[in-house]
């Protein structure tokens, strides 16, 4: 298990390539916010309080076009609905943390921090699975210790789990998500690296009012980063189906307002992936199995 410091630095490092795309994006936001007539303090407060690029862009667009405040508020909230999916996705990995940690990590849950953190968590799941099944000599003892520690911890440090059914307790201690590790420091490192870059780049855009050249197409680095994260993770049929169907659905739904197309497409992709997994089991096992 790597130390908290090592995990934190690994998180910062994993976030660095995404910052190439985020920093110009933040500066453009700053310039546009000032052009929309928002005062500097308010423009910067949006970066700290809302801390969500697309919602901030939508908000300043609507402010610039003279939209009343209530529709602006509703629109921004809807644009941010996709974070509920991210929240559900990372929740199992951080459920053992105290409330303060959960609040802090929730505040840092942006598209970019989510993308690198969930990739790291899924890698860890994969490593654990391969470490327990075809036993790798270096890791067997380590994994066994982890499981013992985890069971102890569940019983001694988390009194609330004692109220659960015995079957739940069993599945909790065998659940790899609840094993202790320092990966929340990785999440913290990725989240804070993005947070600091966002605050500084929007401030730079606001105060320098610099002309940001769009000729260099630096915004494209964000799409490229997501490609670099997604493609190696397409290891099984369900993931491939979810990616292809989600992507095509997003293209078809691109005209839906307020980035709702994104939420809709993601849900369609997930359902298609689940369906392909279930269909795959039915063809391999005679009789099949209901999820």
């Amino acid at each position, binding site marked *: 298990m790597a130390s908290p410091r090592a995990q934190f630095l690994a998180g910062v490092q994993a976030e660095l390539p995404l910052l190439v795309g985020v920093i110009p994006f933040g500066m453009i936001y700053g310039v546009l916010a000032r052009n929309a007539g928002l005062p500097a303090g308010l423009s910067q407060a949006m970066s700290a309080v*809302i801390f969500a690029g697309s919602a901030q862009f939508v908000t300043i667009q609507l402010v610039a076009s003279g939209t009343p405040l209530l529709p602006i508020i509703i629109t921004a909230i809807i644009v941010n609905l996709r974070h509920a999916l991210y929240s559900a996705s990372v929740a199992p990995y951080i459920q053992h943390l105290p409330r303060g940690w959960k609040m802090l990590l929730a505040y840092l849950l942006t598209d970019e921090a989510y993308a690198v953190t969930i990739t790291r968590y899924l890698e860890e799941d994969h490593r654990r699975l391969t470490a327990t099944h075809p036993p790798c000599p270096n890791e067997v003892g380590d994994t066994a210790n982890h499981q013992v520690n985890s069971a102890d911890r569940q019983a001694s440090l988390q009194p609330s789990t004692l109220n659960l059914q015995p079957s739940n307790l069993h599945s909790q201690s065998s659940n790899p998500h609840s094993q202790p590790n320092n990966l929340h420091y990785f999440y913290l490192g990725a989240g804070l690296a993005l947070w600091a870059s966002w605050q500084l780049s929007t401030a730079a855009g606001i105060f320098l009012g610099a002309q940001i050249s769009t000729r260099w197409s630096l915004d494209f*680095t964000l799409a490229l980063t997501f*490609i670099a994260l997604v493609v190696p993770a397409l290891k099984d049929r369900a993931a491939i189906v979810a990616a292809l169907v989600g*992507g095509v659905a*997003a293209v078809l739904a691109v005209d839906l307002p307020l980035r709702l197309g994104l939420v809709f497409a993601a849900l369609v992709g997930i359902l298609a992936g689940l369906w392909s997994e279930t269909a795959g089991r039915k063809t391999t096992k005679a009789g099949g199995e209901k999820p």
Partner: protein
Amino acid sequence: MIAFWLSIVIIGIFTFITRLSFILLLGNKEIPPIVIRALRLVPPAVLSAIIFPELLSPGGQLDLSLGNARLLAGLLAALIAWRTRNILLTIGAGMAALLLLQMLPGL
């Protein structure tokens, strides 16, 4: 201007609640296997839903022609990501391809 500030705070609170929703709700409850399987599919589904429109309809219009530089650069990047699993190499090759294609006359 106070109304503006208030709006920002309201949006911020709702955004935070959205991000916190499942993290706090889940607590120590057991997660059904179907939900765990669905959650594993969130990253490929969401990230592809961001990537595909960027590549296939960069100007807001579906463009499957060879003149779509972002599509060609994105496909090259996907190939490199698949073969090398290297994030920086993927970004570098994709950006280089995009800038070269944009410099070509007639595109």
